[in-house]
């Protein structure tokens, strides 16, 4: 087994689609009165569009695309701060490719690189660490970005740097947590969600119980899901089945990867290196309490905020107004589709993204744009809308 092809099997998908249709019919889901299922994670959004799952599932099922793309929700002020660090003379600024095109108020990292900053894309914080070893004369800063899935990698890298006594490595920490914004969404009086697809790789780290509040406090089903199309369809089926059966539980479709209680080494590393910030700004959602992490004082030597006196470490993130007229918050809470935003595809495009959700290829507006939500809709989908 190679754990990929098996979960991309069109035959299995066909079976699942039929079963989904059956259960959807059983609970009376129709295009007019759809079941709203939010996939929280941008990785799931991406997979749904890449495989066209939104067009294949029963028309009574409507996917609401959640805030689970850390690139999309990164405030412009933080990008400005990245640029500010990256443009310092002696700095090699390292980042995942995802963040390169995110616009700040003045420029993106890609533009800062074009303007002369030494900015390098890496695949792993370990590669940044290696750069620090190889360039003792330079300050190597890693742009730590991501949810709980990614947080352990930077925590372990900081621990490793400390073990080696590297003094020229630091992390600009922008790690955020998935549960807090879900609570915000669920507390919204306009909330229409009937169930959730939970981010499997986040749970690989934190386990499935951090989502208990969704079932217990808010009475909504959630299924922690893998990222292959069969995983997603099976999870949709499991959500629907819970709805049909009147249950609200945290289920684990992705048990091959997700241990119930997560990964203890990762959790220990996070706890050792990071602590919660009082609050953190989310693009399109605003400040959310205890939703972001910062580096503990004992690792201050590895904290780019402290080292460069920039950002939360020095003062609160600058208040940067989002561009006017963006529908991002409405899209993220499921109240409109991307195509319902007046800016979609006109002044807001992947080339020149205005809103958060157009920024990353995982952002739902970008996915809509890239994968065809904007042009002639599929006849089936058209009927459904």
């Amino acid at each position, binding site marked *: 087994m190679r754990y*990929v092809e*098996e979960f991309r099997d069109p035959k299995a998908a066909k079976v699942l689609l039929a079963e989904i249709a059956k259960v959807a019919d059983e609970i009376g889901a129709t295009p007019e009165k759809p079941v709203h299922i939010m996939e929280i994670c941008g990785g799931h959004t991406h997979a749904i569009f890449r495989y066209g799952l939104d067009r294949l599932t029963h028309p009574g099922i409507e996917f609401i695309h959640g805030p*689970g793309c850390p690139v999309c929700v990164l405030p412009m002020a933080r990008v400005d701060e990245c640029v500010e660090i990256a443009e310092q003379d002696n700095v090699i600024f390292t980042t995942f490719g995802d963040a390169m095109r995110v616009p700040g108020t003045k420029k993106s990292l890609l533009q800062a690189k074009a303007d002369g900053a030494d900015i390098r894309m890496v*695949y792993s*914080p370990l590669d940044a660490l290696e750069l620090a070893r190889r360039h003792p004369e330079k300050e190597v800063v890693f742009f730590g970005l991501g949810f709980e*899935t990614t947080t352990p990698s930077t925590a372990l890298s900081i621990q490793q740097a400390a073990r080696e006594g590297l003094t020229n490595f630091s992390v600009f920490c922008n790690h955020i947590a998935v549960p807090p914004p879900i609570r915000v969404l669920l507390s919204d009086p306009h909330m229409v969600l009937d169930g959730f697809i939970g981010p499997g790789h986040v749970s*690989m780290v934190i386990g499935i119980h951090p989502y208990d509040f969704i079932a217990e406090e808010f009475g909504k089903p959630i299924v922690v899901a893998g990222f292959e199309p069969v995983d997603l369809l099976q999870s949709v089926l499991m959500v629907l089945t819970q709805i049909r059966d009147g249950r609200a539980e945290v289920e684990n479709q992705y048990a091959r990867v997700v241990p119930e209680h997560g*990964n203890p080494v*990762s959790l220990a590393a996070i706890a050792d290196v990071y602590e919660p910030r009082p609050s953190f700004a989310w693009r399109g959602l605003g400040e959310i309490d205890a939703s972001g992490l910062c580096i503990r004082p004992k690792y201050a030597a590895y904290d780019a905020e402290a080292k460069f006196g920039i950002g939360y470490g020095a003062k609160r993130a600058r208040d940067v107004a989002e561009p006017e007229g963006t529908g991002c918050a409405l899209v993220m809470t499921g109240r409109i589709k991307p195509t319902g935003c007046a800016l979609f595809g006109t002044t807001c495009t992947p080339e020149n993204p205005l809103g958060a959700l157009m920024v990353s290829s995982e952002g739902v507006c970008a996915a809509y744009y890239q994968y065809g939500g904007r042009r002639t809709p599929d006849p089936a989908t058209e009927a459904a809308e």
Partner: protein
Amino acid sequence: MCLGIPGQIIEITDPDRLMAMADVSGVRREVSVACILDGPIDGLIGKWTLIHVGFAMSVIDEAEAAATLEALHGLGEAQETLEQMREGAKALEAGA
């Protein structure tokens, strides 16, 4: 931030730093196995893991994977049976 992919540990490259070589469809990359260490490091060789940004984050549970696929299989067979029954019924009707 959830791009994770299955890869097989094929070699321990640096036991001190807990680094190992992972293979993803014939593409190799050194990854940290710090998160999945649970016994002697050599025991990881041959294991399938879930890899994210250069870290093996989870050992893939073969039994769980098989169980998931098995459930689908059951579903498929049930549907087929149902289909056959329906076709049989149709045939009977047609024959009637």
